[in-house]
């Protein structure tokens, strides 16, 4: 009877336990951080590549990049450029002849996590006395989830001169992250870019 009471309570209480996120969008977060000592207000120009890196493959010492298809990348770049323009920056080409104040580098990454769980099927019966038990072997289930991240960084190319390891200083980092739903819809990514700039008012040159 004790087991019955315990099981009844567990079932009863589990049934009314509150649920968390219902839709993949509910997992979306946007993280930004910046160098507090850095002054953005006296900067005017930025440059960026024309492609978005999605993966890097190194094979026998050869490095190759996998890029996002243009039809998606173009929408992302448009959104980034709109926000940078609104903050007062002018975009200039990225080549050896120009000297931008800031370099903007976007990257899109995905990561899949696999996990497994198992449970025993339980029984309650009366054969040689009543009791509870578990069937053997347990069931195993394997699941996975994939998260996507849109990372944008702003670096100051001039700061490499002052770096002991000749590296440019990253002055702003933005990371949008959420569960991937394979809907070929980048509206969530575009929304996260808008949010990243919205929560970083210190980027303004005005």
């Amino acid at each position, binding site marked *: *009877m004790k087991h019955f*009471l315990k099981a*009844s*309570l567990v*079932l*009863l*209480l589990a*049934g*009314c*336990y*509150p649920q*968390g*996120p219902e839709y993949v969008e*509910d*997992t*979306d*977060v*946007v*993280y*930004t*951080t*910046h*160098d*507090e000592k850095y002054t953005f207000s006296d900067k005017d120009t930025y440059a960026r590549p024309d492609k978005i890196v999605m993966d890097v493959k190194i094979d026998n010492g050869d490095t190759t990049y996998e890029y996002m298809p243009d039809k998606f990348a173009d929408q992302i770049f448009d959104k980034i450029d709109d926000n940078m323009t609104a903050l007062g920056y002018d975009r200039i080409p990225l080549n050896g002849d120009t000297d931008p104040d800031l370099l903007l580098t976007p990257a899109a990454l995905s990561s899949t996590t696999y996990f497994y769980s198992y449970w025993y099927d339980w029984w309650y019966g009366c054969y040689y006395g009543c009791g509870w038990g578990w069937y053997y072997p347990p069931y195993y289930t394997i699941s996975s*989830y994939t*998260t996507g991240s849109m990372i944008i960084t702003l670096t100051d190319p001039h700061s490499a001169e002052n770096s002991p390891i000749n590296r440019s200083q990253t002055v702003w980092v933005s990371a949008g*992250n*959420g*569960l991937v739903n394979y809907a070929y819809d980048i509206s969530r990514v575009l929304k996260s870019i808008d*949010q990243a700039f919205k*929560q*970083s008012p210190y980027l303004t040159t005005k």
Partner: protein
Amino acid sequence: MKRLILTLTIAVAAVTFSKAQNSYVDFAYSIGFGTGDMGDFIKKASFRGITFDYRYAVQPNIAIGFNLGWNTFYEEKGSDSYTVDNATLTGKQYRYSNNVPMLATGTYLFSPDEFLCPYVALGVGTMYARRNTDMNLYTLEEEGWPFVLQPEVGLRLQAADNVGVLVNLKYLNGFKAGDFDSTQSYFTLNVGFAFH
């Protein structure tokens, strides 16, 4: 099905505990209202709660016993930005607070053999308090076992020989402990069955 399980559970427990005339057994549905730090964390009232009391009358007016309970507070926050130093994080938060008080109680019954029996009680003990802040796929978990003082006022209505209903108000005052650097407190309004 749930209703059947609940009814069976209450019936079995009532028969088990209320055989002795000196015993008082209460099962109640519990509605919680967070105050102070807990109220700031979750503003919404909790409609997920249960409480159980056993009281043994050592004198006609005085009973000692124990109280067990469970109150789950939950609130889904809209998308918002949280800034710490130079970092800002924006997203939806899902906040949970689970509280399981375990208290020894002392009760004073004003009119133990009457149809209406008001009473006051004080509970002393601890509770398991766990707070989760879920964001993205991660959870920030805070735990503690605060020392608890719980004053209570209530009213028992003896509807039949040994069955009645009760309503009571408890203020669970949990002192700061574990991961919590301030008190964890809430009111509960409890309505349920009273066996005697």
